[in-house]
């Protein structure tokens, strides 16, 4: 009898814990939670990573503070998305003219195994001179992606090589490091350039 009561309490306890877990899930991840913020990156000032640019300089999120930033992920073995994005960006920078010189433009590899500093230097050399190529150890690249809420994944190909799935958007930050907006992959110039101007203007507002 007594044993049975203990068992009963036990079942009730397990039930209560399960209920609490469910309520917790409901509030945090479930339908009862707040609207998801989506894939918005945190501010650059909240990020922490150490990489190397294509000229061998040590760089990090602090390198980007003080000027508006356009950043995106890719890899140099990418046949379609990355050269397209780099060409699009080169075109947007041409449109911006002198203003392009006022921003950081950073291409961050998700394939550091193949994209060494030298490889990045050769590759970015084919595009607009404002574009910087950043690479670094695998775990540092992972930290960058965390901060950006970006994802990447190595996918083996039939030929024994690999390709990468990755976030294809271009991220825009204000000079303060605050995230402004994203430009979708291959977004037309008439939408992309005003978005970049917004990031540039935010800098002016912040300064005055």
């Amino acid at each position, binding site marked *: 009898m007594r044993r049975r009561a203990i068992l009963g309490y036990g079942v009730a306890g397990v039930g209560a814990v399960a209920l609490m877990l469910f309520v917790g899930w409901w509030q945090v991840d479930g339908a009862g939670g707040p609207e998801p913020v989506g*894939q918005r990156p945190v501010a650059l000032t909240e990020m922490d990573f150490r990489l190397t640019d294509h000229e061998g300089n040590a760089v990090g999120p602090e390198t980007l503070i003080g000027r508006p930033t356009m950043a995106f992920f890719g890899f*140099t*073995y990418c*046949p*379609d*998305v990355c*050269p*397209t994005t*780099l*060409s*699009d960006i*080169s*075109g947007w920078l041409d449109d911006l003219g002198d203003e392009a010189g006022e921003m950081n433009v950073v291409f961050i590899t998700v394939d550091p195994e193949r994209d060494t500093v030298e490889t990045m230097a*050769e*590759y970015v050399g*084919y*595009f607009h001179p404002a574009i910087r190529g950043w690479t670094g150890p695998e775990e540092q690249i992972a930290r960058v992606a965390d901060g950006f809420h970006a*994802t990447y994944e190595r*996918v083996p*190909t039939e*030929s024994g*090589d690999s*390709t990468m*799935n*990755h*976030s*294809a*958007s271009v991220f825009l930050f204000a000079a303060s490091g605050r995230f402004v907006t*994203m430009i*979708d*992959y*291959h977004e037309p110039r008439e939408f992309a350039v005003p978005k970049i101007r917004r990031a540039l203007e935010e800098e002016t507002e912040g300064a005055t």
Partner: protein
Amino acid sequence: MKEKILTGALAALLTFGGLSTPVAADSQEILVDDVWARATIGVSRPAAVYFTLRNTGGDAVKLIGFETTIAKRAEAHRLKIDANGISTMEPAGEILLRPGNDLVFEPGGLHIMLMGLQEPLVEGDSIQLDLLFDDGGRMPVNVRVRGIAARGPRN
């Protein structure tokens, strides 16, 4: 009797004619335009070829394969961007060309991946890519190699 044989022969001729001629002609009704590829750095990276196909015939034609001497393998791939902005590539398989329609291979969509390059694609050069159709047709296409930063066949 003689008449009957003749009719039979004519029917056979028409049947064979009806089967072979228009089918063989299907892929001959395909026009190709705006053919280009980006130059590559070395041979270890894959290349992508783009073009526009127009089916001017009255029947659908299927594009079933690609061959080139410059790469070990040539495959149609399709780029996909999901709701989270993640890009993935997948083999496009056989591609149907509907009569009267254009099919555009362009950055961010369909492209022919050249894998295992035998030599780099050099800006200003041309390479040959053969398009293979389901009616047995083979269409050699001259691909103009543009710069690495090219955005299209003309810009």
